[in-house]
């Protein structure tokens, strides 16, 4: 279990307890948090679950795969802190994680 703070582009904050084993994307979608679309349901096929991971957490959220890197290369408003949230697995180590959402996923 990890407490994750999802911050929408307009600043609205949602603090959610997410079960270990789920992805950061699933934590948002299953709790109806707007701003993460995840059209493909987590198959790393669409890049509509784009988030920015706060600097303090970038080590703990792990490395991007080549697949994720390529998908992000062509997403909108990409920054060095950009991740696809379907590729970040939640564990106790991510308790306190903060992710921010881009203006749009499409």
């Amino acid at each position, binding site marked *: 279990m990890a407490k994750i703070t999802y911050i929408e582009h307009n600043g609205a904050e949602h603090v959610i307890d997410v079960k270990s084993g789920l992805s950061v994307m*699933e934590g948002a*979608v*299953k709790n*109806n948090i*707007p701003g993460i*679309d995840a*059209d*493909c*349901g987590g*198959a*790393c*096929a*669409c*890049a509509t679950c784009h988030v920015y991971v706060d600097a303090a957490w970038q080590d703990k959220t792990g490395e991007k795969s080549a*697949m994720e890197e*390529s*998908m992000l*290369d*062509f*997403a909108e408003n990409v920054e060095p802190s950009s991740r696809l949230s379907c590729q970040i697995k939640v564990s106790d180590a991510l308790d306190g994680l903060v992710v921010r959402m881009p203006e*749009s996923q*499409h």
Partner: protein
Amino acid sequence: MVIAGAGHAGGTVAALLRQYGFEGPVKLVGEEPIAPYQRPPLSKAWLKGEADADSLALKPTSFYAEVNIDLILGVRVSAIHRAEHTVELSDGRTLPYATLIIATGARARSLPIPGADLDGVLTLRSAADAESLKARLGPGKRLAVIGGGYIGLEAAASARALGADAVVIEREPRILARVACAVLSDFFTEYHRSRGVTFEVNAQVEALEGEGGHVTGVRLADGRVVFCDVALIGVGAPPNDEIALAAGLECAGGVVVDEHARTADPDIFAIGDVSHRPLALYERMFRLESVANALEQARQAAAAITGRPPPPQEVTWNWSDQYDLKYQFAGVPFDVDDVLVRGDPATAKFAVFHLKGDLIQAVEAVNAPAEFMAGRQLIGQRRPISRARLADTAISMKEVAA
């Protein structure tokens, strides 16, 4: 608000309506006994045992009560009475509506051949179908897939992962004939073959044979019998547009809608696999069958109903997972005059671009996410490209698209 159909489209539009601030009552009516879930994994991760029921669900079951969506399961909308603004349910109930969204999807086409009702002859559309298929696959079992489309190929790959044998029977000279180009057909055929799947192409299925009521083989027109323990029929999915047709709404292989997913009746929308919709990029009407389409139209309808500006126009896309392959495709290959291959199919990392002059109409990418993503953007922007640069893998897709 009544939503007829609680699939990916219906479930999504219900949630979006609440997200967009719709405050009226929402009744989501679905024939299946379970809350809306994702279908794509049924032939992929789920069939291989890599995903559970919870992970398939679009939302937790508690969600619907929390946001006051009335989930009515195990029944379907059987008739629409437009003048009265009511729908009739299969259990005899009547529901009033101010706005109706038809999201009844498509159904697996059945084969009108002898033996089609034998035990062990299956289609794959619902979670229950997938459950039934999975229970019959395993070491020593043999799956015969009738129809070499995505569902059939994904099921064949999953069957191999479960230790079962798999044979794919296709009427056309090549698999994926309706949906992909020959380069892709050849590639997938070889990839499956080297993992133990066998193919019968140019093969007309005449009957399913059985013993004691259970399927034992597929008889072909040339008299041969392909033996099997399970036969999966994957030959397309016609739209469930009967209630719309009966209500006098225009249908053309799907319910005809505009760019807001609205029918000619201003109080009735149709979204997802059941709709026949405009594709502005290609200046024509078409019926798309994909999650991306269901979600795009769910956004269109929810925006129109709540008075939001329409969502941006999307380039349609889809994907398929087979073995370790990530196959992604975008656009529709209409009016194509040339096909360009970028990369070498022998490396299992390549893309096929469908061109109309210097414009990309569609892209099919195997383990090539950059080609898929850049291709999708270029299709949407209608930006001419240089064929020579596109074919040159030494030039990155970022540079090609720059």
